[in-house]
């Protein structure tokens, strides 16, 4: 491997010694077998040789150690990538020689959970599952994306945060409060109330301009703006049990929340328009905790417990014939069982008025206990990979619920155009409702076969998709443009190029923070 040559290089040795002096010998690695574990991902880049092993992996344990690492990277002008739990490694795969991975495995503390003021102060390794467990114990909760709760809660709050409970408590990035953050140039920045008191993170705004937007944007800064070392996140009141209810054995666990406080419905409509109208009406009535229009493929991705079960049921059309244009709703009795009773009556009126019908009871009974609560607390998210080795997504876009319909329909056309290699998926059309129906989030997710011999051809087709995606983004909604290449394409169109480049230049003068994310100032 290339690493063998660099290890003997004088510059490599200087950097190694600098890291070792800052962190201790055991917290710095440069050996091939360790590096080999830090450039895989769920996307095809590793298979196509588009990513490469890093040159170092370092394990800082504190903000000051992160600062020391980043200063060394600047001194030697070597790129670094901060990673959280490194789950799926979406943009954590090095694509440049000499990359340093800043792995936060020694930064897993929950500093504080303030029950009265409902916030937690966490370090980057703390996963959503860990934070959820501690919050539940205190009658509080956060959400988690449907894939997955093993992700870093800090990263999860910066990146999208389109989690199931976002309908009720807002998407995750709106729950960020105070931040402690090492900028790409090594300066430590504290925002919100951390700016006054490093131990008190309850407030997110200011001082001065609200800098949280730099980190979260819509899909995070992808490591392009340094590394967050501590974050306060908002928690919310929770009417559920202190320990998550789960029965059964892997892979057939079921989770049933107390029926006097949580009630699932899956209501089917003749058209996508009907389904979206239902979502609007629910939002207007200000009821429910989760409102999602899942595509058919989601039902079976999260439900199937083996490849054989997935493809057998798919060929039997168990879900295609029963859940098309269906909306999943979970009512929560936040304050009392009476509230749930009230919401049930309201929802049942809405179902009647909008012409909805419950899906077949046998399909409901098959699916809900094993799968539905995944949208409140994820556990099956990575099942998305099972049927074909990977899945891909395009057309991640925020819009009104109404325009999300056009958005996902364009997705149908693109899926059709590129099938194969896209596999059978029954028109993937996920539309999530957020902020009581104030806006929708559309995404087109589909299975593709992870085949090394097909992968080059597939990538060409995906690039074509991406180009269409960006062009389409000009007409409908706002896309997330995930990091470097996307910002490079989209920033000139949306006229934020100069702003983003200026910020990047100002805080990352040596262009070392996960280049080319989130934008290349010199391109």
């Amino acid at each position: 491997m290339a690493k063998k040559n660099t290890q003997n290089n004088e510059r490599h040795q200087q950097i190694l010694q600098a890291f070792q002096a800052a962190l201790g010998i055991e917290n710095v690695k440069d050996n091939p077998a360790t590096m080999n574990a830090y450039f895989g991902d769920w996307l095809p880049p590793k298979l196509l040789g588009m990513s490469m092993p890093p040159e170092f992996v370092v394990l800082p344990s504190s903000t000051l150690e992160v600062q020391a690492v980043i200063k060394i990277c600047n001194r030697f002008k070597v790129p670094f990538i901060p990673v959280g739990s490194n789950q799926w490694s979406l943009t954590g795969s090095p694509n440049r020689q000499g990359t340093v991975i800043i792995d936060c495995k020694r930064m897993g503390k929950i500093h504080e959970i303030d029950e009265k003021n409902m916030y937690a102060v966490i370090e980057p390794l703390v996963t959503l599952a860990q934070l959820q467990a501690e919050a539940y114990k205190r009658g509080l909760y956060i959400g988690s994306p449907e894939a997955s709760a093993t992700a870093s809660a800090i990263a999860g709050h910066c990146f999208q945060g389109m989690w199931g409970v976002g309908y009720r408590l807002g998407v995750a990035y709106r729950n960020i409060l105070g931040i402690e953050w090492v900028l790409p140039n090594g300066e430590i920045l504290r925002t919100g109330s951390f700016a006054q008191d490093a131990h008190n993170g309850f407030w997110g705004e200011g001082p001065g301009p609200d800098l949280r937007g730099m980190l979260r944007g819509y899909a995070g800064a992808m490591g392009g703006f340094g590394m967050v070392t501590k974050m306060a996140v908002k928690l919310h009141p929770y009417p559920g049990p202190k320990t998550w209810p789960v029965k059964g054995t892997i892979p057939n666990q079921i989770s049933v929340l107390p029926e006097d406080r949580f009630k699932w419905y899956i209501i089917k409509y003749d058209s996508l328009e009907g389904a979206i109208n239902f979502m609007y009406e629910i939002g207007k009535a200000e009821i429910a905790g989760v409102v999602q229009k899942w595509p058919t493929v989601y039902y079976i991705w999260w439900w199937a417990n083996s490849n054989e079960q997935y493809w057998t049921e798919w060929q039997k059309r168990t879900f295609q014939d029963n859940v098309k244009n269906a909306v999943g709703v979970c009512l929560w009795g936040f304050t009392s069982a009476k509230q749930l009773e009230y919401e049930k009556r309201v929802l049942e009126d809405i179902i009647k008025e909008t012409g909805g019908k419950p899906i077949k009871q046998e399909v409901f009974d098959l699916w809900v206990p094993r799968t539905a609560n995944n949208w409140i607390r994820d556990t099956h998210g990575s099942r998305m990979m099972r049927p074909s080795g990977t899945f891909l997504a395009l057309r991640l876009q925020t819009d009104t619920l109404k325009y999300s319909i056009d958005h996902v329909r364009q997705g149908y056309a693109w899926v059709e155009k590129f099938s194969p290699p896209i596999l059978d998926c029954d028109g993937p059309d996920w539309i999530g409702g957020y902020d009581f129906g104030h806006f929708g989030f559309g995404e087109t997710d589909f299975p593709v076969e992870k085949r090394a011999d097909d992968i080059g051809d597939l990538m060409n087709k995906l690039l074509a998709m991406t180009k269409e995606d960006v062009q389409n983004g000009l007409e409908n909604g706002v896309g997330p443009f995930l990091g470097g290449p996307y910002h490079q394409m989209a920033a000139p169109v949306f006229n934020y190029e100069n702003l983003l480049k200026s910020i990047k230049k100002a805080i990352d003068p040596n262009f070392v923070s996960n280049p080319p994310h989130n934008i290349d100032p010199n391109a």
Partner: protein
Amino acid sequence: MAKEMLLPKDPRYLKYPLDAPFDKEKARWIAFNCSRCSVCKWVNSWQVKSARYARICPQHTRYLYDSHSGQGKCDLALAIIDGKMKWDDDPEIKDILFRCTMCGGCDAMDKNIRDAELVKLYRWMRSEYIKAMGPLPEHKNLIDSLKQYDNVWLQPRSKRNAWAQDLKNLGIKDLNKEKADVLLFVGCTYGLSQELKPTILNIAKILKQNKVDFGILGDKELCCGSPPDKIGLLDEFERLATANVKRFNELGISTLITPCAGCYGTIRVEYDELPVKKQFEVLHVSEYLDRLVADKKINYQREVPLTVTWHDPCHMGRMGRPYVPGKDLEGVYDEPRRILKSIPGVELVEMERIREYAWCCGGGGGAFTGFKDFAQWTARERLTEAKDTGADILVTSCPWCESNLRAGGIGMDEKMEIRNLFDLMMQAL
């Protein structure tokens, strides 16, 4: 006309190749399909009850780097198989492969989200490593002992029967000479360890008290093959396992029972890979005695006023049944708990990580003999978790777990007594 469905071309996506031999191709398939989802590092998130006890993998928790995890081992396997790395490229490969207790925590969590057999992948990798690099010096004594004495403790074969001399008056059958319905397969550790000898004596007494028609093989008993299987000496495993199955079949027994979790998992699950098939039922002693408890045949005489917590040995639990994709990861979880609850005075309190989510004791996979520092660190984590339950004692039924937990506890500020399930049972009889 209905449009033809677009299904994966590779039939392995349609159905996991469970019955295919575990060769390089199968190893690559498992490694290739790792999506870096990291579920191999954490307790299944529906089961996470606190931030403190959210991790499943001792190796990754101890060594932190992703290379030392299920995901990292998949990356390593892929690099080796695809010719991008060689076994001698990096001395740390040895630690990545062997500083792992083969506890199957990652494997169980992974099976929730994909069809794969991670522990079998590691076993294949260890075997390939040994072919290229030779056996580990850390395992030399164990290997020499197996080859010379057919046990793992460098003890002469004649010593294997020594424990039974204390029970001569009980008239335990020697199945080399006479027939019985049940074979009590003692295992190397219970058979040869002075420290653990009371347990096997107690088991024999309980069986006798309940008029079970059982016998032993005495000094003719061989190692079950678990240690060579776990450390990658597959030829040695096959030699021992084949000899054992043939011998057990010849005995005409209906049931083999063993108190050792390692022997149990190996005989019950791993022997299925052999060409020669078992003609008898395999039970852990706790499963067998649970049936007697259910039939109200156990007559307790005394109370044992203790609050206890149960440690699930990996090879009785998540590694104790053959894998079938989509089916429950069953194991011997309920039987020992029912026995504990049947003992008058005993109160069972649970740790956070139990059943298929149990944290390993640290003693498996060759760690107990080869990497004591890591094995005992892992044990201390378990003991801390046990202490947090408020239990007076930790109960288990695996000689490796018992020994390693005791070793790990030395020097800890808060002591936790380790007891065997059958010793506790005997105390009440």
